[in-house]
């Protein structure tokens, strides 16, 4: 599992936020476009791409995209 690829998949869930601003260190809850609806898209993406079922607390408890990546990686 590749971190850069995960960041790219994560960025694809956003419509308005420019993809170039996403890095592993991005604090995604602080992004203006972030909402619980985007959270659903992220859960769907992780299920589709990595076959991992995330819980709401996994998303809420993660600060950076890399935090979430680490949770997904530990469950593959």
């Amino acid at each position: 599992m590749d971190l850069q690829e995960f960041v790219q998949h994560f960025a694809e869930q956003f419509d308005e936020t420019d993809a170039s601003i996403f890095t592993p260190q991005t604090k995604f809850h602080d992004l203006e476009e972030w909402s619980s609806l985007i959270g659903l898209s992220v859960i769907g993406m992780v299920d589709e791409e990595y076959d991992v079922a995330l819980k709401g607390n996994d998303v809420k408890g993660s600060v950076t995209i890399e935090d979430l990546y680490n949770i997904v990686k530990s469950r593959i």
Partner: protein
Amino acid sequence: MAFLEYKHVRIAGMASGMPKHISSNLHPGRKEQAFFTEYTPEDFVETTGVEERRTARHLCTSDLCYAAAEQLIKDLKWNKSDIDALLVVTQTPDYILPATACILQDRLGLNKECYATDMSIGCSGWVYGLSAIMGLVETGHFKKALLMVGDARRRAAGPPSPLFGQSGTVTAIEFARRTTPVQFHFGTDGSGFDAIITPDGGSRNQFSAKSFRQEDVEGKMLNRLQTRMKGMDVFSFGITTAPKSVKKLAEHFGFDYLDADYFVFHQANMKMNDLIAKKLKLPAEKVPSSMRHFGNTNGASIPNTIVTQLTNEAQNKRFICCGFGVGLSWGTVAFQTDNIVISKLVEVKDKIATDYVV
């Protein structure tokens, strides 16, 4: 292994009653605007697929089920005195006591020699209710029965959620000596009991003045009599559990699920349902949806989708239907239609009830 199979029972007909009034999500009313704090109505509609839904201020579940049942009984040309059983599945009964089924027995003028009770389950409710009532009819002792699944007016006032629509559906079940088997798979995961929950008003947390206390639930202010949902948990549960249940059913009974003509899933929200269909590699034309115009109608969303989207296309078709939600609970059923009667959607005018009111 929670599998069931019945061989002497068939679905004779289906009907749905809905309020005549349409609530638009793109142009929310003053009270509904309270919901759109985190995202815009446009974003909500794009993600959930719910543009509008049917709502009424006064109609209860029994009012909508009653209207649908009168229409279906007429369309089926059934004699009311032949109906042996009535099962109501709802999370919004008219009263905490008695069972809504008892009120409907009298209101419909059914025989007093009638088995009638309620079942408390949510979005898996039509599949669970179907298995329960079919089990009664399979014995041959009961010949005709009605399953009513619906939810209308909520138990507590407050800003309405733009996701949910109101309805009352009826599914008519009949004993049949020779028919194609009806097959079920069920599952339950009570560890997710609080994923969708109404905290107060039961005996664990008795109704009290504190029940009106507003609490911040994932950014929304709700009191303890309103139903709260851990949206992301429910989403994750739905997209993983529903496809697995369909696959398990097909594997257990030895058929290829892709051979079915229609797949009707609980209408949770569009994003969730699109992912479920994608995971099962289903072609879009086999997966009807009623979310755009009627929203998430809880346990009734499967019959609502069949009644509103497949009114004239449901004849001699093989269906796979899967309901999933509060509990957490899920169920999948496979059946073949044969001479099924689908009534046209019954639209019910909102009015303050005068009968069966205390």
